[in-house]
């Protein structure tokens, strides 16, 4: 029996023992077809999904090689049924092809006539297919390309898309690598994306996703539409692009609530694209405003549903999705895969941390014991209000203060989800607050002050969930959140992961109320990061408050 690092489970998960000498080789072998699901400290979990196997087929791996690597690295005999299933699944890919026919435009071609007949009969494809040219060819309207691919995927007969991409309007863009170079994983991510044509790159917060976008643009050398979550993030993109590429301020346009500029590189917010007037989306023309060669979706895990629909029409253009956590609380990861593209690159957070590209972080959960009065209030609160009652308990205030005081020399972010709590905290800590209603101007001012170091502590509302670049922040304290959102937790940790100049550690504190629903939500929130290998430590508030007990008035 071989002594490989891999254990194949009957539910098609693969367990990889990371401390095994062959672990690295094994990861290289299985990465093309298996998806990394969890990467805690000792055993990483990969999963074999039909999608992953088909992507591997698309990338030129055949069933034989997949089966071979499974058998080669497996510690135990691999069940026959699983091997057969892998081969059968991979065999389904490419029986249908989407190709550009010189005479008839986009057509669906069946290498297997029976499959073509089967899918043509399906009700799910009603209206997407046009005239039947011959036994193995059916015309497809170009606008249905995305929807057809999505529907075929659901039917289990994924089409191989050979119709290619339009190059778009050429525009010279190159990276200005003065004093810095693209990191190896960023280069790998760009290469993976370019080879696949379209897809999603998953990198931890602070690992330089913007640069991956910039490098992709430099490879495409074409006009680019960048979709971001909000105006501040858009400006950060602009700053970064000007600094790191040959693009000048005049070449980059901002398309937001405030300005409507369309330039060779245009940065638009999701918000403005999904805003409606009289029930109609008024800014959709942007997609057709230029012959875009590349569309970049920042924070693709937050992509709003209407954008999905528009994206279906953009299948002939190259699409790049960027995210730190491909965990969507609405469970629509599948739509991201089929419309923007499959995951093209993924790296465990801890690997990038080990390479020094993100700061090592210590995650601590501080459990606060509620006072008798607070416990009584919590006990009689209605179910819907319970989380708020537990999360906004006043007992948390001195603990937050103690934590801030513990790091006198650091830049501290206090992040919460309930505005009244944040205001109380702002007064208690004597720190300014950035919330949804804060004007962009005021935000910029506060962020600049924070970056400069003149402001040590900043209280953030949910705006802290989005990409704001505050490289100096080394301590984050979260006091409340959006229930059990794993993705929010990851984003918040991301705020402090920018590598520090002296390589010092970042601290991420979560203050929760003991014996309440707050604890349960915290456990759920931590799941994603724990699966990424972040070991949480749980401490009691008394340990934090320590000997110099602060007085509560």
């Amino acid at each position: 029996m071989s002594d490989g690092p891999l254990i194949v489970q009957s539910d098609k998960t693969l367990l990889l023992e990371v401390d095994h000498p062959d672990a690295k080789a094994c990861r290289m072998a299985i990465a093309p077809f298996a998806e990394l699901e969890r990467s805690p400290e000792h055993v990483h979990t990969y999963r074999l999904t039909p999608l992953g196997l088909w992507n591997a087929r698309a990338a030129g791996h055949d069933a034989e090689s997949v089966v071979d690597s499974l058998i080669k690295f497996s510690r135990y005999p691999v069940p026959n049924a699983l091997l057969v299933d892998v081969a059968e699944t991979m065999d389904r890919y490419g029986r249908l092809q989407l190709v550009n026919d010189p005479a008839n435009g986009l057509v669906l071609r069946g290498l297997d006539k029976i499959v073509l007949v089967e899918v043509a009969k399906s009700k799910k494809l009603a209206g997407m297919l046009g005239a039947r040219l011959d036994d193995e060819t059916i015309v497809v309207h170009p606008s249905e390309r995305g929807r057809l691919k999505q529907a075929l995927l659901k039917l289990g007969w994924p089409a191989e898309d050979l119709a290619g991409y339009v190059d778009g309007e050429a525009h010279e863009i190159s990276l200005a690598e003065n004093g810095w170079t693209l990191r190896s994983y960023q280069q790998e991510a760009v290469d993976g994306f370019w080879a696949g044509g379209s897809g999603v790159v998953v990198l931890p917060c602070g690992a330089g996703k913007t640069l991956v976008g910039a490098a992709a643009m430099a490879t495409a050398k074409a006009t680019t539409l960048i979709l971001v979550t909000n105006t501040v993030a858009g400006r950060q993109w602009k700053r970064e692009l000007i600094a790191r590429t040959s693009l000048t301020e005049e070449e980059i346009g901002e398309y937001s609530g405030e300005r409507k500029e369309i330039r060779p590189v245009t940065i638009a917010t999701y918000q403005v694209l999904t805003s409606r007037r009289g029930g109609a989306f008024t800014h959709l023309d942007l997609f057709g405003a230029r012959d875009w060669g590349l569309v970049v979706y920042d924070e693709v895990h937050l992509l709003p549903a209407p954008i999905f629909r528009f994206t279906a029409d953009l299948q002939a253009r190259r699409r790049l999705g960027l995210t730190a956590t491909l965990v969507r609380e609405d469970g629509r990861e599948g739509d991201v895969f089929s419309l923007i593209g499959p995951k093209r690159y993924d790296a465990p957070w801890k690997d990038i941390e080990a390479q020094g590209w993100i700061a090592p972080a210590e995650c601590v959960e501080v459990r606060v014991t509620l006072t008798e009065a607070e416990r009584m209030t919590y006990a009689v609160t209605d179910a819907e209000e319970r989380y708020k009652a537990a999360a906004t308990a006043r007992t948390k205030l001195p603990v937050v203060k103690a934590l801030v005081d513990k790091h006198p020399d650091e830049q501290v972010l206090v992040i919460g989800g309930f505005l009244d709590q944040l205001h109380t905290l702002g007064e208690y800590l004597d720190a300014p607050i950035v919330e949804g209603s804060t004007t962009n101007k005021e935000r910029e001012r506060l962020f600049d002050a924070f970056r400069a170091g003149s402001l040590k502590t900043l209280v953030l509302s949910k705006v802290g969930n989005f990409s704001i670049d505050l490289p100096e922040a080394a301590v984050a304290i979260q006091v409340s959140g959006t229930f059990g959102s794993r993705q929010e937790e990851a984003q918040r940790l991301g705020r402090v992961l920018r590598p520090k100049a002296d390589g010092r550690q970042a601290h991420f504190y979560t203050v929760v109320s003991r014996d309440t629903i707050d604890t349960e939500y915290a456990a759920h929130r931590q799941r994603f990061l724990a699966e990424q290998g972040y070991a949480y430590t749980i401490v009691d508030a008394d340990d934090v408050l320590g000997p110099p007990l602060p007085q509560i008035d």
Partner: protein
Amino acid sequence: MFSEPDASPGHFNIVPRRLALNTMATTFADQLRSLTDEALGALVQLRPDLVVPVPADISALAVRAQSRGSVARCLDGLDEFTLRILDAARLTRSADTALTSVDAILELAGGTSADDVRVAIDRLRVRFLLHGPPEAMAVVGAVDEVTSPYPAGLGRPADFLDPRAAALCADKAKLRRTVLAAPAGARAVLDRLAAGPPIGALTRDTVAEPVRWLVEQHILVPISEAGRAPNADGELVELPREVGMLLRREAGPLGELRPFPPLPEGSARDPKAVDSAGAGQTMEAVRSAEALLEALATEAAPVLRAGGLGVRELRRLARAAGLDEVAAALLIEITYTAGLLGETDATGTSRSVTVSRAGGAADEIFLPTGAFDLWRALSIAQRWHTLARAWLSMSRQPSLVGARDERDRPINALAPEAERAGAPQARREALLVLADLEAGTAPAVDEVLELLAWQAPRRARGREGAHRDALSGAALLGVTALGALTSYARLLLEDPDDDENDPLGVRATASAAPHDAVRILDALLPAPVEHVLLQADLSVVVPGPPEPELAGELDVIAEPESAGGASVFRVTPASVRRALDVGYTAADLHSLFRRRSRTPVPQTLTYMIDDAARRHGGLRAGSAGSYLRSDDEALVAEVLADKRLAPLGLRQIAPTVLVSPLPVARLLTQLRDGGFAPVAEDAGGAAVLSRPKVRRAPTRTTLAGRPAEQAGPPVLAGPRLAGVVEQLRRGDIATRAARRAPVTVRAANGQSVTGLTSVQRHGEAMAVLQQAVRDKARVWVGYVDSHGATLSRLVRPVSLSAGYLRAEDERTETLHTFALHRITAAVTDEE
């Protein structure tokens, strides 16, 4: 169209007219008698059913060897080539003597190697399907009755069918010219009929035109299917033998002959890879079977009234075990056969496992048996061995589950409809095909079926389903992997005896070999581990099959997440609470994780256990008969201190609450007697006021007025009495009539005859009747009429088919029809 003058009603067979047939039978018996002991022994060895039970003498053996049942069984075991040679023997019989010769057969077999043909002829002769000297061999009569009326797919001779066709066939040159002149459509019809069977029905208009042409040319002869109502689809046409042989010019008159089995080519796999994939599959099968029974133990499934396990229940179990329904049905059937699963009363008393599946009584449920617990304690290889052996011997066809029966009702798992007596043999046949190939050869399923069809065409017909079922089951159990037989499964099958030696499938029982199978499989399977890997996300990974003790611990303290080569569990607050509930303390859990884990115990886990332990038992529950509460703590204390109230067994559970095991009425009475002033409360807390009720016994029905029952049996009158009398008279007549019949018949009819009491075996009676039909001899038939009376008659049997004997009574000159199952005895008339 014209009718067929020569075709005798009832059958198409053209059995050449024989010489005195009675002497023929004697000849057969004499031939047997003249055999050496070795040769006779060889015959018995090849046809073991001849001596079950041992016949009284050689004559009886001869009758049995010529009986339809035995001949059919013997033919079932023969390969395609030998059967074709038997067809050749039938075709080459001379019209006068009904005899054939080796030379005639060799001539007909044409291009095939003479040695191969001779070997086949010898095979037929040692089995006494052909008998007599090589230059004058006879085919046993029953062969014509149990095989196709068209030997080698050729029609009857033209002169037998139609004089005009005969005239055409007589002129070879004209025949050839006519056939060559046939239009394309007609030629296609001819080719199809020439390949056999040579009979076609005139149905569709599209083929009608070419067929009409052929009929007009007398190449095809219309026949009416004798003995049946005219076919609604139209007439039947037959291709005369001569034309058929002409059309088969290229392949030879017998069609394509394959003296050697069509060996599957198959792709070659690395035997090691096969074993490895198979071993993985065995783990999977064992784990799935366990998961299924585990799911059944958690929630038992009811036995359907018609027997079996309902579709919905099967689906539920399959989902719980993560299987598809086909696999679940197979494993359920196997575990049942292996005795790991059984029925029991819903109330608790278990029923013997061996009782048939048919007809579940009300309120019965399926549950794992006690054997399941023993089985679980075995090693994986041994567990698999139990399942695989049960599967091999299982007379069930699991692929039928989910299909529909002839009444279009779905067949359920464990239901009697999926019972197939031939299944074990079909399974063995299919696996032996694989076993005969070189290790690692993976033939396609169709190739295996093709070979099986060659090996025993008569048996394989209609068994494709069973063979496919066997192959898919083998893959699921890990008996085969990557399409090839695994080395350990080969040992499971291995048996020194020759396969043909076992037509009854008795040999399915195991020999000593399986121990080797277990040993080899054991070496392929991972060794059990006793440690785990703990991670920060609270997952527990067991990097291999867990030791039973470890598995038991993890079952309690963690939730399973994924199983297979390794197992992944997750510790949750709920699972820790469950562990605390069954008696683990926090310290126990800490030490258990420390002891079992190869990696440091995450701080989060330690914290969670302590936290759960702290909260465990924060609420207390119990039962009491009644409670006593008061806002006045002093009053409560006073009640508790009152010695007179000691019998109430009051216990203080809070400063203001006391509980008592007694009902609330006793409590109230005693308290009032003690001088307190309690008020009762209802469930909502409101005061209940009651006044005492007068007691009465429960109401019951009156005893008076029931009439006394009459004693003794009822008095008969009217038609019933007349019926009884008539029955008596009829019995009397029957007895008198039967007195003349031979003793065997009388004995069978229940009349006591000295020295002969046993009923004649049904099979023997059939053999006598079959022989009598051939010999046109008179027999005494004893039978039971529709009123239940026993009679006997001297008749001359005409035909024996479809469950009925038709025979003529020479004295009354009438044709009688006897239902075969009513016939109690048959004896040849010796006068």
